[in-house]
């Protein structure tokens, strides 16, 4: 066993932390919130130039082909810096699906554009009745002479309004398959909206969308593998936010005075901050485990570690976020302070890609199998 990072990983982490601390101020965050699609093109360009988008693209497609841990190191820094650009939803998640799919090799041009920051993608897999489960899919892919006709409805496809192409899951006979659909295809319509905690999403309607037969990327196993990678990385992003809130809260307890003393002298608040710290460290352990196992060829091992991390971090991040606001008192409730913005980001984290209940069920199902 050796839990240290390689020197390359330390350099990667270092550059991401520096970017988040120096290149992405709270003012930049507010600017990004107002940018089209809540993504500042200048920031996205920098993210691409650092090579962080290429981390998700295999070397064979001209990328860097980083490990999930590599990507997670970047994500943690971005989370700590409140970076809302769609690193995971627009790049890591869809790239991981394509890389894991049968079509890997056929999509090199698209992945190249993704790595260079010239294109963003999105994944439309969630449906209202299926909640978080990618296997519960009622969208239909009907085979015809030209390829497939897709019909159905997806909800909350993160980053869809910014994407050049959507990866859509649809039922093809008895299987659930994945299709790459250019956003401008006839019959495809988006209801776009901003999402809690930053970023944009869309509900997607597919009304007889005709795609070619080579639009089929592969089957649901690629979606599952991509999801697990995205979730592990997303947990690292949340870890960054938790750490930022822990640091801000402990600093506030040192400086805010009431009753003539720093409020950090009140034991009930001291214990609360200690609990926040403990939850942060417990989370870190499971996030590291999940990033290590996310690349495992053993799907059972991978699923178990990823769902454990998500179930745990969802609960821990909720506690940390709630207490950060509580311990700041009135000022923690304001738009003016960044604490409330981290709070919202962590709240959204708890839901996207499956909540705690969903992942506990999934963990249990894997353990029972």
């Amino acid at each position, binding site marked *: 066993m050796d839990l240290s990072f390689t020197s390359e990983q330390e350099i990667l982490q270092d550059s991401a932390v520096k970017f988040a601390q120096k290149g992405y101020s709270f003012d930049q965050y507010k600017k990004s919130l107002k940018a089209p699609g809540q993504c500042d093109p200048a920031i996205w360009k920098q993210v691409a130039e650092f090579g962080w988008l290429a981390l998700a693209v295999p070397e064979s497609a001209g990328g860097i082909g980083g490990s999930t841990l590599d990507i997670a190191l970047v994500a943690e820094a971005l989370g700590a810096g409140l970076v809302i650009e769609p690193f995971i939803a627009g790049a890591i998640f869809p790239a991981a699906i394509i890389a894991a799919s049968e079509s890997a090799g056929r999509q090199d041009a698209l992945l190249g554009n993704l790595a260079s920051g010239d294109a963003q993608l999105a994944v439309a897999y969630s449906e*209202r009745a299926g909640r978080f489960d990618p296997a519960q899919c009622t969208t239909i892919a009907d085979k015809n002479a030209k390829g497939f006709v897709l019909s159905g409805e997806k909800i909350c496809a993160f980053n869809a309004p910014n994407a050049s192409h959507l990866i859509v899951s649809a039922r093809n006979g008895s299987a659930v398959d994945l299709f790459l659909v250019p956003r401008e295809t006839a019959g495809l319509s988006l209801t776009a909206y901003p999402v809690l905690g930053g970023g944009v999403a869309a509900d997607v309607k597919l009304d007889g969308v005709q795609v070619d037969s080579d639009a089929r990327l592969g089957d649901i196993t690629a979606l599952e593998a991509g999801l697990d990678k995205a979730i592990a990385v997303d947990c690292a992003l949340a870890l960054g936010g938790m750490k930022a809130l822990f640091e801000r809260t402990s600093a506030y307890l040192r400086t805010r005075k009431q009753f003539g003393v720093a409020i950090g002298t009140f034991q009930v608040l001291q214990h609360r901050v200690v609990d926040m710290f403990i939850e942060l460290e417990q989370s870190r352990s499971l996030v590291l485990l999940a990033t290590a196992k996310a690349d495992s060829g053993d799907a059972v091992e991978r699923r178990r570690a990823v769902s454990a991390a998500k179930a745990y971090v969802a609960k821990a991040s909720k506690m940390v976020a709630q207490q950060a606001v509580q311990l700041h008192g009135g000022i923690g409730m304001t738009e003016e302070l960044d604490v409330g913005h981290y709070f919202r980001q962590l709240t959204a984290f708890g839901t996207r890609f499956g909540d705690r209940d969903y992942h506990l069920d999934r963990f249990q199902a894997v353990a029972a199998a």
Partner: protein
Amino acid sequence: MNFDYSPEEETFRQEVRTWMEANAPRDPSGIATGMRIGKETQFAWEKKLASKGWLAYTWPAEFGGPGFTPVQRDIFDAERARAGAPSVIPFALMMLGPVLMKFGTPEQQKRFLPRIASAEQVWCQGYSEPGSGSDLASLKTQAVRQGDKYIVNGQKIWTTQAHWAHWIFCLVRTSGDGSKQQGISFLLMDMNTKGIEVRPIVTIDGHHHLNEVFFTDVEVPVENLVGVEGQGWTIAKYLLTHERTAIAGVGDSKRQLRWLSETVARDPALKDSPHARRRIAELEVDLLALEYTNLRTLDRMAKGHSPGPESSGLKIKGTELQQGISEAQLEFGGLQAMPWGQDVEGEPVYRAASTRYNFLRACTIYGGSNEIQKNVLAKVLIGL
């Protein structure tokens, strides 16, 4: 012992229910689900209540209220919530009113109480300051007497609905002598007075409820002092004991929980989920415990006793439950609760969930944070 309501109380409930069903505002933007209530809707609703004589529903008849018993008040509030109608802005009706009844001069009572009960005058509460939140007694806003006026200088913060209010009641410092509590006085100010400036604060639900209020050489006639100089702290403490029972929020929590379970029952993804059913059952049991603790307190009050120590738990448990229900709304809503700052189609409870969840973080902070409530209770219970 008997937990049943009397036939008279049941008749009263029916009367209120019928009226509420006919008159509660129907608002497509979803007041009912706890989304933001606009000023016009709120004011129109309060006018309607006033015309029925029910706006000041906690007041005795001699001061222009309907003279409800404690149990009737509770029934009234439960029925108001059940109908999905917004609660009244509490500052004048629940706080200032009782203060004027006990400490105000007959002139002050005549001048203000009828206008409050008729919805002519909306008030806000100016207690907190940037440096004085939990430690309220350290407040610095100064009122210096000059002839028949006070000259007020300083700043209040977190002032709910100051941008709607016609008047503000403030705790101000009139003396630096003695203990910090001794120098505090209770002063009423017309928000239109020269030198008062209101600046908005936007909260993490994305809305404007709160404000900063700045006072620069504001001239306030001495007849706007309530009680005597230096009595402000005593008045503030009286006010706190007065708001204890309303604060449990049983009626509104019941309504929110019912909406949630109705929504879940038609949600194809959750209606058969054992998690969801159990979570709702847990919240219902917690709510029942709160409801009956509240009723025990009401029973004591109806018999002329002051609220017992069990009532101190009402704010703590009541606010935790409000947060717990909003958390369940958010989590059941799942991806449907993710849209932010833009109305989209969908189940109203899910659509409102993230806004409610965010704003309700405040309920364990305002009105004396839950940490402070526990400090107070600990002192009484441990007796050190």
